[in-house]
């Protein structure tokens, strides 16, 4: 009896665009951060005496790129539809 009742009921799928939006927003910065650190490691391997300066620019580049991924986390709260 309960199986028939369960089969007869309809389920609605609720799509949370905020979550999907964050997933899409994390693609670009994921690639970007990989590029930043990859090139920094290669540069440090080519010229180890410049490691300090390269590390400084690496962290600056990382934070500028990551802000876009974090914007994907906070923007659903800004644009919430209710």
């Amino acid at each position, binding site marked *: 009896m309960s199986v028939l009742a369960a089969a007869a009921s309809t389920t609605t799928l609720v799509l949370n665009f905020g979550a999907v939006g964050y997933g899409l927003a994390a693609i670009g910065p994921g690639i970007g951060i990989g590029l930043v650190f990859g090139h920094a490691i290669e540069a440090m391997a080519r010229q180890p005496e410049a490691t300090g*300066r390269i590390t*400084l620019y690496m*962290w600056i580049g990382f*934070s*500028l790129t*990551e*802000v876009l991924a*974090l914007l994907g*986390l*906070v923007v659903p709260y800004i644009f919430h539809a209710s």
Partner: protein
Amino acid sequence: MTGAVAASAGSCDVFSAHLFSGCGFQAPGLQDFYFKPLFTVDGFGFTKPMLVAILCVIAVIAFFWVAFRKPKLVPGHTQSLGEMGILAVRDQILRPAIGRKGDKYLPLLVSLFFYIFLMNLMELIPVFQFPAMSKTGFVIPMVIAVYALYLYLGFKNQGAWGYISNMWPHDVPWPVLILLIPVELLRFFIIQPFTLGIRLFANMFAGHLLLSIFMLATWYLASLSIGLLFAAGSAVMVLFIFLLELLVDLLQAFIFTTLTATYIASSLEAAH
């Protein structure tokens, strides 16, 4: 059975929710960033983030006051620590960006760095456990102050038209300038201060949410069943997120201060 009883009793708050108790996982969200006032004075509610911010200000001022109250040539313990902090900001942040002529901005950068760093660290200290920089009300005045400072310095040192025209290179063909000038003006006057503030705010917001989710999940899963295994896994994740947040706190303070120094440097430099 017990699930239905607990859910129908209507008490599904964060403390009583466990696995298999009928209440779903009470996920942290935006409501966790709003606090009831600790006390109210004439309709103005004094909340926990304000308390955290005031304590950080008092701590930073008190530390540097005590360190340099009676400076000696051979420093004692506190003065040595204070000197290490100031020299770290000067040599890693100020000198690479501005050079020796920027030494008069050292008090500003030292205050910014240690204030932001301590406010961020409050996320991890047990009793407070709230990064006050995750409320935009604490970030926006700092951004406005930095914005006003480097705009004032730019207009004073390079003249109004000189400062604005230095934002784009001059020896490019004019069809490129049609696209370049609006983009550069937009970036400079609107996007730069906006991202300076939102970088700090979003990092702290996301960090607090991450830490909250894993801590609440540890408590939620800790029922006397297979849930204890998952609760242990969640506790390990709390440790990882703790270490990550330690790095992010230091990095965000460093980045805010470095970008402030960079913007001041671009305001101070003479015309190309």
